[in-house]
């Protein structure tokens, strides 16, 4: 397979739904190409898809990526416990990592929020779907010159988009999202809620953000949020405002809806798409040296 030499080479480890969706997304990018698609299960659907697309595959897992270390960036779509093992290995190999597991090891990363790290970013953690959907909105609010003293993030996702790992890790989802709000903005009082909705046809992901703010200028905030939504749409096409900000009794409420791009994961799974889209965007920023 021929590739533009200028393109950055990427390895994907983890051949489940997230890994496959990433495979499609990276293939569409003009900055990167998938060099290796690696898992541990030789019968996985992902391996056969990657083979058909002409990508070199292996089911030797991390050891393959140690032996064949001629790639620039690696996406880890395995599991939190696996990433705990992978992270130091990639660091030793001098590889930049985008971590899509909830391992909470690397720097919490949202493409639309500038992070000021002193060192280059080696390990970018994609936080959670609710975090990717809500943190940019909170950023837009904070950049309007106000600081909420309480933030609440309520996310509903289609039941079928929540796999068994998500269902067993609801506490971790809440903890990770909560700690991201605290570390990004220094807001101490945060409440995160997750709902699963079994409706047919399946519902899109929806996240509502409540902020307690005194003396907010709703017009300034609304315009900042609009700009942010436009920017997010450049990397998550299905991201849109479902409820324009309203401000009553010191509570600002706004809601976003996320439908997926339908690359591999179904369109209703906006909660997964916002993570894979975000991961690709972070990788692009790593390539450009912006993070």
């Amino acid at each position, binding site marked *: 397979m021929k590739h533009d030499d200028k393109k950055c080479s990427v390895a994907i480890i983890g051949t489940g739904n997230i890994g496959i969706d990433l495979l499609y997304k990276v293939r569409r990018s003009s900055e990167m190409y998938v060099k290796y698609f690696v898992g541990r299960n030789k019968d996985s659907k992902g391996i056969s898809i990657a083979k058909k697309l002409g990508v070199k595959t292996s089911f030797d897992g991390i050891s393959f990526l140690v032996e064949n270390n001629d790639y620039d960036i690696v996406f880890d779509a395995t599991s939190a416990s696996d990433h705990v093992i992978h992270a130091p290995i990639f660091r030793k190999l001098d590889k930049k990592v985008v971590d899509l597991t909830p391992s909470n090891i690397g720097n919490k990363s949202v493409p639309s929020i500038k992070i000021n790290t002193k060192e280059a970013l080696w390990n970018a953690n994609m936080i959670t779907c609710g975090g990717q959907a809500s943190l940019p909105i909170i950023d837009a609010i904070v950049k309007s010159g106000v600081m909420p003293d309480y933030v609440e993030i*309520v996310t509903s996702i289609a039941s079928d988009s929540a796999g068994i790992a998500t269902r067993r890790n*609801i506490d971790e989802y809440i903890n990770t999202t909560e700690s991201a709000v605290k570390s990004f903005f220094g807001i101490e009082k945060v409440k995160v809620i997750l709902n699963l909705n079994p409706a047919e046809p399946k519902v899109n992901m929806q996240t509502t953000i409540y902020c307690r703010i005194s003396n907010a200028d709703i017009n300034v905030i609304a315009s900042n949020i609009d700009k942010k939504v436009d920017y997010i749409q450049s990397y998550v096409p299905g991201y849109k405002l479902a409820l324009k900000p*309203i401000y009553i009794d010191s509570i600002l409420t706004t809601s976003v809806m996320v439908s997926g791009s339908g690359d591999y994961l179904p369109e209703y799974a906006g909660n997964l798409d916002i993570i894979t889209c975000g991961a690709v965007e972070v990788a692009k920023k790593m390539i450009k040296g912006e993070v």
Partner: protein
Amino acid sequence: MKRVIISDTTLRDGNHAVDHKMTLEQIEKYCCEVDDVGVDIVEVGHGNGLGASSLLVGLGAEHDKDMLRIARKNLKKTKLGIHFIPGFGRIRDLTIAFDEGVDIFRIASHCTEVNVIERYINVVKNEGRIAYGVLMMSHSLNKNELIKNCKLIESYGADAVVIMDSAGYYLRENVKERITCLVDAIDIPVGFHGHNNLGMAIINSIEAIKSGATIIDASIKGFGAGAGNTQLEVLIQVLNRLNISNSVSIKKLFNLVKTSESFIKTYPNIQPGNIMSGNHGLFSGFCKHVEKQSKLLDVDEYDIYKALSERKVVAGQEDIIIEVANELSRGGLN
């Protein structure tokens, strides 16, 4: 017929009726007196359970820990219970309840999402406490799906299964069919939690008992979300007439009704909004939120309920009520 266990939901589901603003003083007074009445379990806390105090469903007036502590102090004979929904509450909230001496942990999920409760039931059982698996909005599953999910709850090691008619949707024959099959299918006790949206709470609870349920949720004056729960004092009187064994002293219960009038000022009555939510199969806890948005934006409650029903929202999606009402006020949604 087996003795019926009465689980009093006044201080938990009733919290919905006062926007979760029940005070420690009210809880203390109630617990002090109910302990002698003979109800088996008293549930205490925010209407949506441990850790649920939020702008989404309503900020509680008191902390979970304080409510449980004051209840525990005043309950000697009656067991103390809590409601818990994963996604609202976390293990750390269960730990608080362990420390405060809660006896019965009612771990609940929307009826289709039963596997999310497995982890929390395990946590409770590992602590050596009693865990009930609770399925909310149980009307939205057919008989076979309901049996399947209740068998899962049994497999998680729960001590009982409670099916909730959170929307007050069931008619008598629906309860009979479901409870009869459940009692047949699983070996742990089966409970029923009624709502009165269609005026069926008492008769549905009696039907549940006749079909083999042995745990019944009820509250003083039916104090609960929406049109309220099964009215405890009426239920006990009917059970006594039917010679169904229970451990409640009706005389003491009547006195409790009188003294609790200090904070249960009105009997929940069945408003058109409750009938609509019952008929659409929407969560009773939506009632106050729909009322609020309807007044705020001058939108007809009827249209809000209709839109919510089309969106197929579940408990915990109170944010969608705001979205839908704003959309309607701008002339959207047709």
